[in-house]
């Protein structure tokens, strides 16, 4: 028989990691909270609270996020640059802060100043090409070229670091 304390214990011990995974996958704090709540809600309706492991909980979050993204309208999926391939997130250490720090370092030290600005404005601030071109006084085609160059540089550097 499940105990309320089992659910609470699981919740308190695993919430932060589950929420961080969902938030990184969905880039949306509120949607991430809902996904985590849904996972625990499914435990409430069962007798499994004593049996589940953190690995199980993370898998449930990962699958919930993936299905949420997959069921989104495709225009939104491509516009928001959601992770297109779940296999990337299957490693137990994903989201890996080391990889994220590495990406940040590449942006800071391996890109030109203009390229760095464009990447930051697009991916950190979520601005459109039109907004970026207007703020920086460059054409939208130049914005595209900077983004392409920036992503290819990041991709190649990550690959070379293995």
């Amino acid at each position, binding site marked *: 028989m499940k105990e309320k304390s089992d659910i609470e214990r699981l919740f308190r011990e695993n919430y932060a990691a589950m929420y961080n995974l969902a938030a990184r996958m969905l880039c949306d704090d509120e949607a991430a909270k809902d996904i985590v709540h849904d996972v625990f809600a499914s435990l409430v309706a069962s007798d499994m609270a004593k049996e589940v492991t953190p690995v199980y909980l993370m898998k449930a979050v990962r*699958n919930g996020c993936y299905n949420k993204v997959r069921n989104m309208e*495709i225009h939104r999926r491509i516009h928001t640059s959601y992770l297109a391939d779940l296999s990337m997130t299957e490693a137990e250490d994903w989201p890996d802060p080391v990889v994220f720090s590495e990406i940040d370092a590449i942006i800071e030290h391996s890109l030109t100043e203009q390229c760095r600005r464009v990447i930051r404005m697009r991916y950190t601030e979520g601005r459109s090409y039109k907004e970026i071109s207007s703020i920086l006084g460059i054409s939208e085609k130049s914005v*595209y070229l900077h983004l392409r160059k920036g992503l290819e540089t990041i991709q190649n550097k990550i690959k070379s670091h293995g």
Partner: protein
Amino acid sequence: MDKLHLLFDAMNKPGSHTDSELHTLLHDPDLQDILKTAGTLKASTYKPSEPDIDEEWDRFRLRYDIKKCTFIHFMKRHTAAAIAVGAFSLCAIGAAVSISLTSERNANAMVTAATSTSELMDDADAAIAAKSPTDTVYVKANEGETVVFEESTLDEIMEALSRHYGVTVRYKDPHKRNIRIHFNWNKGMTLRETAELLNSFNQLSIHIKDNTIIIE
């Protein structure tokens, strides 16, 4: 315009491309690396707010009260009996009405969710059907015992579970057979654990009874 240029254009102005074009771009093998990099970059730059676990636990308790959920589940299956019991005392009537209202609200919410999900699934199924012939039962077995079902139908997944656990499968709603999900199945998990993992998908409600997987 090369494929990469087309992809960047689609990321900027997805509305200027058809669904079919976007599906093609998303699944183009030559674009997977850049899509992964863009996704990882997006995830790396996103800064989640710091969660307040006490507050979230309180929100969870209010949203999915444990006793209430259990009782609603009971009420769904034994409505007539619960109403009869409720008639025995004013207090019990009050409780039954209160729970019934909650249950009805939840049921309405479920109907709404199911409608929108089925609409999404219709779109997704149409798109997937037009996409490629590679969406078979599963694509790979990992190093351990994990089987990855990529956009497989529930029917395909259930067939594998049925073979592995030696159980039968019964659908109360035959339409559920065609739901497509991405599911990582660790074959070391018990049938109950697997069922619970599947239950974490909103559109699924799965129970185990007498060596049978029942899908509602």
